[in-house]
């Protein structure tokens, strides 16, 4: 279809896929700074979900903004309609009314709907000490959808069993969720290769779609847990030209979306480059 773009990066592919999970009328939260997630929210807000409500830091119903590196927080908090501190936010949204979508990037995820942002290895003397869960335990359990995104789909990340369950979907099938007083909704993992979906406790993640240019074998070989692979796997819907244009021209003018996809060592230089452009835009 001519409206689809052929010129997009793997990061843009993932970003657009996350944005598509956001529906108009959804409630979202911008918390810890994860550029790809922020970009996907703002893209959704300025395209197909103009009425969605997001909390940006302490700003309720913030205005959409072009993602920057130096000023994202100041921009995110601008023009809010109300103010909530973190305590009010968690009671109202995490535990009360309910957030719909809040994508989480974790160190590990497994086939049971668990994520790990805490430790790899021994808990008290780990090989890798991660940042910890923050709100993630509730995000993955309570929100309408559990959405994980992974820039590197591999067996170190998508593992048979996470080393520490920082968060878990807990109840997965819609019936079990409703029985536990939770809103029904699936678990989706969006990676640089594919989209995986889990909707039943007893069944493995289903390979919902592979991104253009990716084979089913690529996905299976790089996944550390069992997958349910249909006979005919769909191809993930490509970004549209309009989405890519809005992304690059308005929402993500400095290319922050690429950040998560970069090896750690390259990130500082990339960030410095962005800062330089931000200063230029400021007229300095």
């Amino acid at each position: 279809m001519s409206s689809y773009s052929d010129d997009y990066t793997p990061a843009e592919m993932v970003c657009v896929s996350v944005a598509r999970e956001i529906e108009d009328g959804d409630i979202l939260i911008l918390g810890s700074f994860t550029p790809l997630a922020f970009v996907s929210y703002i893209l959704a807000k300025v395209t197909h979900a103009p009425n969605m409500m997001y909390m940006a830091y302490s700003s309720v119903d913030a205005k959409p903004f072009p993602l920057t590196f130096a000023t994202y927080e100041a921009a995110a908090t601008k023009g809010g309609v109300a103010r909530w501190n973190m305590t009010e936010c968690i009671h109202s949204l995490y535990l009360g009314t309910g957030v719909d979508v809040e994508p989480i990037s974790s160190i590990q995820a497994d086939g049971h709907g668990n994520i790990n942002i805490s430790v790899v290895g021994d808990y008290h003397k780990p090989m890798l000490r991660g940042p910890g869960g923050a709100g993630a335990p509730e995000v993955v359990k309570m929100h309408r959808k559990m959405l994980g995104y992974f820039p590197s789909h591999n067996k170190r990340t998508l593992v048979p069993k996470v080393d520490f369950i920082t968060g878990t979907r807990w109840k997965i099938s819609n019936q079990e969720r409703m029985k536990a007083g939770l809103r029904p909704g699936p678990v989706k993992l969006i990676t640089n290769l594919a989209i995986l979906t889990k909707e039943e406790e007893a069944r493995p993640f289903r390979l919902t779609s592979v991104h253009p240019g990716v084979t089913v074998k690529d996905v299976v070989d790089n996944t550390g847990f069992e997958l349910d692979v249909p006979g005919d796997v769909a191809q993930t819907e490509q970004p549209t030209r309009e989405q890519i244009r809005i992304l690059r021209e308005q929402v993500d003018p400095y290319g922050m979306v690429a950040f998560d996809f970069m090896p750690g060592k390259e990130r500082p230089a990339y960030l410095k480059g962005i800062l330089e452009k931000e200063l230029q835009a400021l007229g300095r």
Partner: protein
Amino acid sequence: MTTKERVLAQNKVAKLTDIGRLIKDGDSVAIGGAWLSSHPMALVRQLIRSGIRNLNVMTILGSVDIDMLVGAGCVDRLMFSFVSMEAYGLPPNFRRAIEKGELKYDEISGLAIIIGFEATGRGVPFLPYRGPFGSDYLNQRPDFYKKIVCPFTGEEMTAVPAIKPDVAIIHAQRADPAGNIQIEGTAGSDLELAKAARRVIVSVEEVVPTEVLRENPFKTKIPRIYVDMVIEQPFGAHPCSLVPGYVGDPWHMMTYMDMAAKPDTFKSYLDQYVMRSEDEYLEAAGGLKQMNLLKKLAREVKSL
């Protein structure tokens, strides 16, 4: 101070170097702010300068504040839900200390730790919520997460205990001398920390007459009945942000990450930046020119 002494005291303004009157070796200290925002960095630097030891530090969403205190050897035990430098990477000193097995820590899920502080301010020994069922938090800290059954519905809930730090340290926009505190930008759970702690120190960008606070009382988030000491310290959150006043300083954060990468270069960071006066710190971090840039960046933000 007792509450009565807090209400009586009309001038709580003190100098940064006075905080030793309220924080001692071995205290439990809850640190305000969240993510990379509004952490009381000038107070943190002053704690390091003073050579304080064996703190039991508590943070909800910590970052460079926690990493610096851990790296400087001030922390005996750490309660946290999150310690992250976000885009800058994992916090180097925090990682190193835990991966070497040198730091005792209590990892608590984010909502539970907030609710624990909140419980104290509400005068209850616990509060229930729909806890992180199925997670390893429950296995790891069965003393913190306890099962409680709703006496009306029979539902199983999670009870978390009231958390009662000795001291809370907080940074905010402005205060009057009596200790009424205005918070305009990103607000973590500083009010809950202030209510929970026995002693409360707040540094602010500016101390103003009470009449200024009355112009918009809706911004006053911590009344004076919860505050013991007020310290005027412009850029007291640097290199963190205090929107809408100033953004975080990404250039300094990258310097920090470089220098904190190894113990010996982190020692140099402390020598060059921290183990001096706060005025010298701000000069070393770029002085007025840099601070004005951070203000300008916060001011000139765009919406779509």
